[in-house]
């Protein structure tokens, strides 16, 4: 017999072993998220999917669903916290949307719209992060990395290559590449790798194309992310 919890009052069925996020996604309900992609093991690092489970905050992507539980998701309080988390991500890196090829197809930008973020508000860090264009097919712009580790997970778990890793600690944490020179061009990343097209923001971008989709026709131009879904769901159209 299926078990249920309620999400903002709606009954959501789930099977044993599913997380709140799994069950909500299966039921077609949207819980905002950035580091989660159902293809990969949940991670729980961005904290954007924080919901209240029987009054206690948990990350929906890692918290097991509980029978009879009340889950709050789309509330003013949680939306405000999500907006603040997004602001922290914006000021941590260098996110210049108007100049970014991923604009309109970027989950960070789309979520910021969805959560009503109008300005970053906090003091920008403006870190100096050189980009890496050494690979024939991809460029990595570390300025836009949000440390979701989707490329780390995809390369390790789907491609079996572990091309990516995290170095540094605290605010110095950053994406690193496994190759003799530390450059992407010397790594084993191949055009067809899952890790190459998993980035939800504009940190890993294909070369030889740019600004291909006109403004107005991009993924999140017409529909909010809650309806359009993740970048990964539209891989063929968006890359």
């Amino acid at each position: 017999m299926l078990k249920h919890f309620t999400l903002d009052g709606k009954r959501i069925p789930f099977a044993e072993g599913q997380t709140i996020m799994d069950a909500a996604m299966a039921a077609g309900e949207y819980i905002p998220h950035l580091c989660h992609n159902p293809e990969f093991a949940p991670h729980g690092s961005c904290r954007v999917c924080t919901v209240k489970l029987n009054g206690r905050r948990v990350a929906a992507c890692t918290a097991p669903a509980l029978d009879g539980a009340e889950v709050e998701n789309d509330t003013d309080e949680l939306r405000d916290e999500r907006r603040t988390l997004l602001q922290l991500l914006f000021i941590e890196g260098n996110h210049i949307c108007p100049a970014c090829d991923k604009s309109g197809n970027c989950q960070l930008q789309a979520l910021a719209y969805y959560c009503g973020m109008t300005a970053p508000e906090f003091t920008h860090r403006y870190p100096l992060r050189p980009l890496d264009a050494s690979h024939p097919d991809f460029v990595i712009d570390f300025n836009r990395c949000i440390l979701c580790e989707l490329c780390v997970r995809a390369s390790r778990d789907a491609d079996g290559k572990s091309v990516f890793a995290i170095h540094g600690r605290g605010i110095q944490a950053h994406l690193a590449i496994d190759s003799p020179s530390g450059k992407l061009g010397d790594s084993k990343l191949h055009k067809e790798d899952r890790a190459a097209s998993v980035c939800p923001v504009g940190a890993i971008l294909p070369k030889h194309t740019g600004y291909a989709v006109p403004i107005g026709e991009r993924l999140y131009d017409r529909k909010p992310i809650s309806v359009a879904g993740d970048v990964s769901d539209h891989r063929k159209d968006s890359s």
Partner: protein
Amino acid sequence: MVHEPRSSNTPVPPRGEGLLRSLVAEQYRAGFISAARIQALTAERGLTRAHIEGVIDFYSFLHLEDVGRFRILFSDNIIERMQGNRALAEHLCRRLGSPLGEVRADGRVSIDYTSCIGMSDQGPSLLVNGHAIPSLDVETLDRIASRVEANTPLTEWPQEWFEIPLNIRKKGLLLANEHGDGDAVNALLSSSPTAILAKLEGAGLRGRGGAGFATAAKWRLCRDAPVTQPNQRVVICNADEGEPGTFKDRVLLQGYAERLFDGMTLCAGVIGADRGIVYLRGEYRYLLAPLQASLERRRRAGLLGRRIGGRAGFDFEIEIELGAGAYICGEESSLIESLEGKRGNPRNRPPFPVTRGYLGRPTVINNVATFIAAAMIAAREEGWFRGEGTEQSSGSKLLSIAGDCDHPGVYEYPFGTPIDQILEACGARQTQAVQIAGAAGHLLPPAQFDRTIAFEDVATGGSFMIFNESRDLLEVVRNFADFFAHESCGFCTPCRVGTTLIQQNLTKIGDGRGSRWDLETLRRIGALMRNTSQCGLGATAPSAMFDLLDHFEVVDKRLHSDEFEPAFDLDAALQEARQATGRDDPGAHL
């Protein structure tokens, strides 16, 4: 259909076990971990170079570049700042011509600060190549400098410099009572695991680390967790005492290690474990040799190894693993990640370590004082432990008392003792505030000194830092903010970015450039960290800051204005333009 829950945690890397040990050994052998050594490790262990470098990067005591023949680290917690550590560090830098944070050009020495090394009752202190020297003064530093210049090996330095007095000021239930080396093991052999569990439960023993989970319940959950081979469970002692201002575990490891090992062996016998690990913080590396000697004595006495106490199937070994300078590894799941050869990021829970811990095996993790208490409870009559403390917090608490008082050191008090009684006993006067439970704990004003040390009132892992009326509490909280920004693992957004924003805002206010807007920012970020951080570090990092804002007036007095103040100095920002145009007239200034 029943699904196996998807693990949200990083898989155990192949041959990751023992990686940290190899790296620590290489660091102390060569002074750094070379590219060639990393290359060799990738081949030996089937790990990528990026993985190994990511692990090295995570720990403050591991380096990719040579840090010199003598690595000198001054402990930089707030107590040692009050004791004048900064002036002493600057003195040594001048004396040796070795700029702070750099390796001297000839590669002989480097000097830097490090997080609290567990010596605030006898600071200022430093670590030289992992060995602690307490009670520093200018004269000692001058003598240290001569030895560094003469390239004298550490073994030929005066050994009395390295002596660390225990400084036990008050003995209570645990420290005043005797305990024979194998008393707990013998108690188990003459009764049964269930009888021991009942005894621990009856005693009401709760984890001494501060969270206070019932010890008997933890051990029982682990004992009941399924394993594929008998005794496949693991007992881990969390000796990664990193909370600033704490040193009681160091004292226990120096003077009471036999009891700890007895308690761990007891736990192994109760839950069915064949493997024990003491995760010893890197700052206590100098305790490694005496602890290993103690383990060797126990092996010879039949209290460790195969057939303990002559009983077939009671096989248990204890190894000691060294940490390498990462506060977060005191969080139990980070500690396990660290042991598995990964960065010490906290895990998502469930699963909890009692069902899936080290290498996926059911694991009990307790701190030093908890194992010692368990050993002593097992060896004694029912009711002994319950005779002290309160209904919800039985027994006693070891406190590490430091700061503005006449007699800093370790004090053992029954739970339920009021703070003002402790202050009086240690000779504290004109106390402005007490920070209890370390940087992650609470800053209490005098109006709360009638509160008591207990899980149900003021819970603490044992740190007790005293600040008199002459101290600037904003500096105290800034020191904590620096600490958390340095020690955040960087995994989750609110802690990674929030700790840095809090640090920046407190600095701005401390420098006299703060506004009411900055206070709002502090509160907003602090609340976000409390609510959404992945682990306790991020959730508790803003606690002292909230206390400062809620219970003290110092911050209000330091605000520059009620309106918005920019994050940078506008006039200073014009300096480049003034230089370029050769102007310095009043019109070129704001």
